[in-house]
């Protein structure tokens, strides 16, 4: 059954966030909550939640259009609207009686065969369904989202004994394709997958930090990047999620787990935490947490708590050799002699053995658990991948040597040679029975990482590679640091186009990095500028322009498939693609003015083309110039693929993929479709631009802003350079300007800005602080 309309009941943070993500998928959704005790608006709670969605940062909604798909209502007046709803998500307070009463109330209102799910994290499905009619049980499952639902990729799905298989199949399919989630099928056990292991991790890490006498900075320095967790580490993470959540979660886990569960041994009373909560130190939402910002005396001092005394003192950076040594791998970390190394071992030895003891109790296989931890807790590696990195046999031996229990599954893995192996270019994972089974991706999922296991790149340099992804389609992958574009990246763009023209049929530009590309490597450009290597920089601009031009006019379709940030030069290459298949979480923008520059690789030119008047746009030479000027001079960044369409970084017919894992497949299909339709490269265009009069008009506006203090002194210089390019230089609207002429103007303006001190200062500041300099 396709889900065409949904309803979320409970307009709290989770409920409204889930509704937002459903709307982001283009699906209309009812958001219901109870009728408030006061006021005339009986749907005020849901309505208020939508208002909050529009204001929240990071934004739960991908566009304002999505907001319009959410209809507020209340559970007393609006249940009649459920007749055409295919999926109802319950996200109300974690109370069994309230939930069960609601489920009963929905009977007769909801469509027959519609799916009913709960977002509960603490009440087992078996308990929820106790005493409820079979008709509910058959349609019911748990859909457990992580906060915030738009950005956290994990969706745990739990079925009961009576749940119809189609329910689980349909909801998994919808969650995967439409909501873009990583689906993990979990068993009906406490904490399901993510929290069962995640809560154990946090508890073990707190306990070990107390036992070993680490400062919170030291604990965070180890429990972050070194073990592959987000850099917030442990205590900073607790501050973020709220300290008061800890006792709740602990109580719920302890109430549900068997007395002999290892978790019961590591949990303990922690008077400091209770005192902190009682004093209002509940984390970032409260007066502060383990860290706090002391603003007494007008200053801003980051302070941290002493775990022994509970006193705050200025936070001191941890100095642990082990944290640096961890770059050499987990084994180096856990065998390091310092207390950081001891700490890592103490936590990971317990945690990873625990995880190994939970298959198949909480999930069928190691893949589900690893994916759960990666997509639910943003770990770089799941527990079984961590064990494999150290070596399963080595890990088992070390546990034995220290008289720690070795779970049977770990012993099996130690004998077999790990939880995963690659055979014939294919990942296999170990089952508890000792057999390996291939890791099969669903149809529509194509991962570059899988392709890499089974093949060698067609060509490669330090910054980019070209892969054969089948059916005559090649994939150009950037892989420099943060995918910043440098001369090597550009050289491979050029070579890739040449290669595909001769030997293949189409090209996709895609990578699996966190960001598609953050733009040109400005460190390189800045250094070259500082040592006055002007010809080298001139050459970098020219090379970029010609590489992107080659992409645009290639005799075959080039499909860009970005995810994450595509800024500056990374945005520009996409502007030159024949078509885009964008991940919904794509953030495009031409942000060069932030470093005192303007787009130099065709970004100005392409934005002028994008804003050429269509049927509904105002006519004349000025509107496209003004629109492009606004987007570039304000360094606008689209916060989603949908917003990128509004800003015309994407065309109306560019496509959006919600699930990142499906992006490459979709892009490849798009390329093949373009081929089928008889792809022809675009013809170079000529533009009518306003020339100096246009430039003056734009400058007047900027100077107006400058006088009001809204534009900075150097903004005036940068904007003028941009205005000169966009207005076409010395042309006027009786003449036409070619694309190449605009490119020349871009290069000239870029070089002139690069020779100004304030631009160099902006670049330096961005590189040192990551923030724009306001000069």
């Amino acid at each position, binding site marked *: 059954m396709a889900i065409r309309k949904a309803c979320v009941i409970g307009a709290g943070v989770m409920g409204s966030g889930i509704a937002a993500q459903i709307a982001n998928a283009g699906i209309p959704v009812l958001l219901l909550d109870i009728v408030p005790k006061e006021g005339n608006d009986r749907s005020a709670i849901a309505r208020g939640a939508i208002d909050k969605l529009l204001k929240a940062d990071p934004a739960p909604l991908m566009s304002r259009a999505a907001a319009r798909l959410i209809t507020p209502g209340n559970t007393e007046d609006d249940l009649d609207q459920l007749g055409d709803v295919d999926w109802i998500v319950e996200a109300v307070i974690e109370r069994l009686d309230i939930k069960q009463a609601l489920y009963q109330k929905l009977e007769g209102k909801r469509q027959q065969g519609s799916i009913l799910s709960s977002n509960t994290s603490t009440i087992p499905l078996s308990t929820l369904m106790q005493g409820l009619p079979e008709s509910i049980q058959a349609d019911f499952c748990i859909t457990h989202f992580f906060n915030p639902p738009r950005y956290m990729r994990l969706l745990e799905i739990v079925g009961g004994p009576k749940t119809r298989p189609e329910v689980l199949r349909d909801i998994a399919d919808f969650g995967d394709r439409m909501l873009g989630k990583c689906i993990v099928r979990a068993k009906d056990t406490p904490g399901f997958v993510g929290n069962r292991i995640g809560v154990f991790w946090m508890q073990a890490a707190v306990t070990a930090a107390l036992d070993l006498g680490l400062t919170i900075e030291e604990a965070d320095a180890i429990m972050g990047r070194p073990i592959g967790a987000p850099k917030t580490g442990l205590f900073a993470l607790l501050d973020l999620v709220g300290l008061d959540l800890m006792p709740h979660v602990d109580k719920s886990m302890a109430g549900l787990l068997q007395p002999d569960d290892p978790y019961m041994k590591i949990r303990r009373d922690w008077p400091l935490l209770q005192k902190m909560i009682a004093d209002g130190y509940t984390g970032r939402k409260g007066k502060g947490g383990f860290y706090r910002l002391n603003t007494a005396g007008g200053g801003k001092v980051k302070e941290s708590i002493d775990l022994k005394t509970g006193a705050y003192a200025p936070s001191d950076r941890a*100095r642990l050799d082990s944290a640096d040594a961890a770059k050499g791998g987990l084994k180096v970390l856990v065998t390091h002699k310092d207390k950081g190394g001891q700490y890592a071992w103490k936590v990971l030895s317990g945690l990873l053995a625990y995880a190994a003891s939970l298959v198949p109790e909480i999930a069928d296989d190691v893949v589900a658990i690893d994916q759960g931890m990666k997509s639910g807790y943003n770990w770089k590696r799941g527990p079984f991948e961590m064990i494999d990195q150290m070596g399963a046999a080595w890990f088992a031996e070390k546990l034995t040597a220290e008289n720690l229990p070795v779970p049977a599954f770990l012993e099996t893995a130690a004998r077999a040679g790990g939880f995963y192996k690659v055979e014939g270019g294919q990942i296999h994972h170990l089952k508890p029975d000792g057999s390996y089974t291939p890791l099969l991706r669903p149809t529509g999922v194509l991962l570059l990482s899988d392709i890499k296991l089974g093949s060698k790149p067609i060509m490669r340099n330090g910054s980019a590679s070209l892969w054969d992804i089948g059916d005559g389609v090649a994939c150009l992958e950037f892989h420099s640091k943060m995918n910043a574009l440098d001369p090597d990246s550009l050289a491979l763009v050029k070579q890739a186009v040449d290669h595909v023209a001769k030997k293949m049929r189409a090209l996709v530009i895609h990578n699996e990095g966190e960001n598609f590309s953050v733009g040109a490597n400005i*460190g390189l450009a*800045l*250094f*070259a*500028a*500082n*040592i*006055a*290597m*002007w010809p*080298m920089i001139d050459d970098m601009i020219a090379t970029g322009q010609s590489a992107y031009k080659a992409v645009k006019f290639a005799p075959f379709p080039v499909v860009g498939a970005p995810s994450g940030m595509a800024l500056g030069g990374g945005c520009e290459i996409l502007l030159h693609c024949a078509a885009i298949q964008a991940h919904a979480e794509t953030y495009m923008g031409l942000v060069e003015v932030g470093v005192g520059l303007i787009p130099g690789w065709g970004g100005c030119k392409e934005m002028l083309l994008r804003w050429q008047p269509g049927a509904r746009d105002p006519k004349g030479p000025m509107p496209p110039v003004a629109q492009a000027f606004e987007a570039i001079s304000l360094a606008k960044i689209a916060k989603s693929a949908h917003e990128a369409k509004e800003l015309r970084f994407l065309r109306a017919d560019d496509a959006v993929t919600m699930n990142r894992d499906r992006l490459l497949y979709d892009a490849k299909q798009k390329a093949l479709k373009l081929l089928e339709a008889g792809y022809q490269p675009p013809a170079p265009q000529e533009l009518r631009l306003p020339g100096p009069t246009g430039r003056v008009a734009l400058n007047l506006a900027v100077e107006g802003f400058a006088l009001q203090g809204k534009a900075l002194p150097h903004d005036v210089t940068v904007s003028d350079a941009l205005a000169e390019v966009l207005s076409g230089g010395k042309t006027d609207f009786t003449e036409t300007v070619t694309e190449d002429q605009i490119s020349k103007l871009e290069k000239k303006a870029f070089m002139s800005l690069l020779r100004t001190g304030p631009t*160099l200062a902006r*670049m*330096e500041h961005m*590189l*040192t602080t990551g923030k724009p300099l306001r000069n």
Partner: protein
Amino acid sequence: MPAYKAPLREIRFVLNELLEAEKLPELVPDFADATGDTVEAILEEAGKFCEEVLQPLNHPGDEEGCHFDNGTVTTPKGFREAYATFIEGGWTSLPCDPAYGGQGLPKLINFAVEEMICSANLSFGMYPGLSNGNYNAIHAHGSDEQKALYLPKLVDGSWTGTMCLTEPHCGTDLGLCKTRAEANPDGSYRLYGTKIFISAGEHDFTENIIHLVLARLPDAPAGIRGISLFVCPKFIPDADGKPGTRNPVVCGSIEKKMGIKASSTCVMNFDGAQAWLVGKPHKGMSAMFTMMNTARLAVGMQGLGIAEAAYQGAVTYARDRLQMRALTGAKFPEKPADPIIVHPDVRRMLLTMRSITEGCRALAYWIGYHLDLSQHHPDIEKRQESDDLVALMTPIVKAFLTDHGFHAANLGVQVYGGHGYIREWGMEQLVRDARITQIYEGTNGIQALDLVGRKLPTGTGRLARRFFHPVADYIEQTSEKPEMAEYVLPLAKAFAKLQQATAWIAQAGLANPNEAGAAATDYQRLFALTALGFMWCRMVEIALARKDDDRDGFYAAKVQSARFYMARILPETNSLFTILMAGSDSLMAMPAESF
């Protein structure tokens, strides 16, 4: 014994014609008093003092050396009196803050005076030189009380100062420092430990000596982040600020060494000596570095001073010494033989000494000029720009000028032939005296690492910009002038090599730090030679413009020196470039045990 004549014409040329220092009083209100007349009078007087008082003591001071007797040090005959005359002349107060009795004159002027002192008597220069470093550190980091107590005495020279850094097991790597500080109830500390190589640690010039000491507090973090700076006077000043109780900081012995024998190089034992913290706990290294950068420039001036003295000695001898005939036939048939100055190889040596020395002077004074701007320019951005340039060029000035000082001294000996090797001629002393300048205040290898590892990456090349942009702009503007082609084209070539080498080091060094380390010394020299090429272009441009008003032939000689530099010195950049681009492999491939 080579005579020394203060090269005032050369100094004036750089100060007034190249740097236009007479405009400083307009540019920088703090220097309103540094008018042309004042500066001229200072230079004249300094020259006279160096020629008449310091230089005659140089050779006897070397012969006699310092005497050590049970904790006391006696300097060679005449030094004590010379120092008294020196402070009477107010020379120690020249660049110091008027708030503490200083004259507040530009450091640039002091650079010129330092050069002359070092030409005349390097050993003597050590004493006020160290005091000045000590003054700078207290001025920058001391408390108001400490400043009020010590600075006036350091300024008027009635007390001297030292910098106590090195210990038996730690020189370059000060993080290994063991000297410890224990807190007294009154907020002061007691120091325990031994410092070595302490210049001016003990002497008979003054009633008191103020030591600045690096030591570790009991709770100090390990390594370089756990070092604090202390001030520890030989005699603890009493309530009136007069030398009071003798502090248990005692000279254990003095070193027997290769050169600068009239400078006392002491082992200092701190046996519970009372001391006071300067600046913040554990921040001693950064306090030290503010002083060290100026000190490094001052060591560069020592190299320049030696080179000038060696050149002067060599020229005199080359004119006087009659041997053989010119290769093309007798030039002085009336004499029994021609003076050796007729020979190409002797000229090669003389012009090498001269053209590099003059280039070094221009470079060092240029940096001295910016040192003043970095501290006194009214515009904060200009201060920053100048500070960047000074930071960038400090290792180059220190290393290149001292390398040249030693090289020039060596060439000086060579010009003298066998007599150069004989002590009474004084030329070999210059070699011995010069040698230490390549080592102390950070060996020249460390300077090179500082340049490639710290200075180049700072601000992704921001410091480099302050040199590369003016040079690039200069080449762009000047390459059109036909009369400058002979000079600007070689500069442009060398500069292009420097740019390429810089870009290569930045990239290769990022991937493999050994690449930067392997290239560092050659790169530093390539940089310095190019910088001198730039200075020579600017100098010759002035000389060419003024060649019609050239009664003493000064400008004509400048042009000739410039031509020599461009034709026969600057091309060394080609081989340096080739060498450094060869990479680290041939250096690092050999296993340590195969050496």
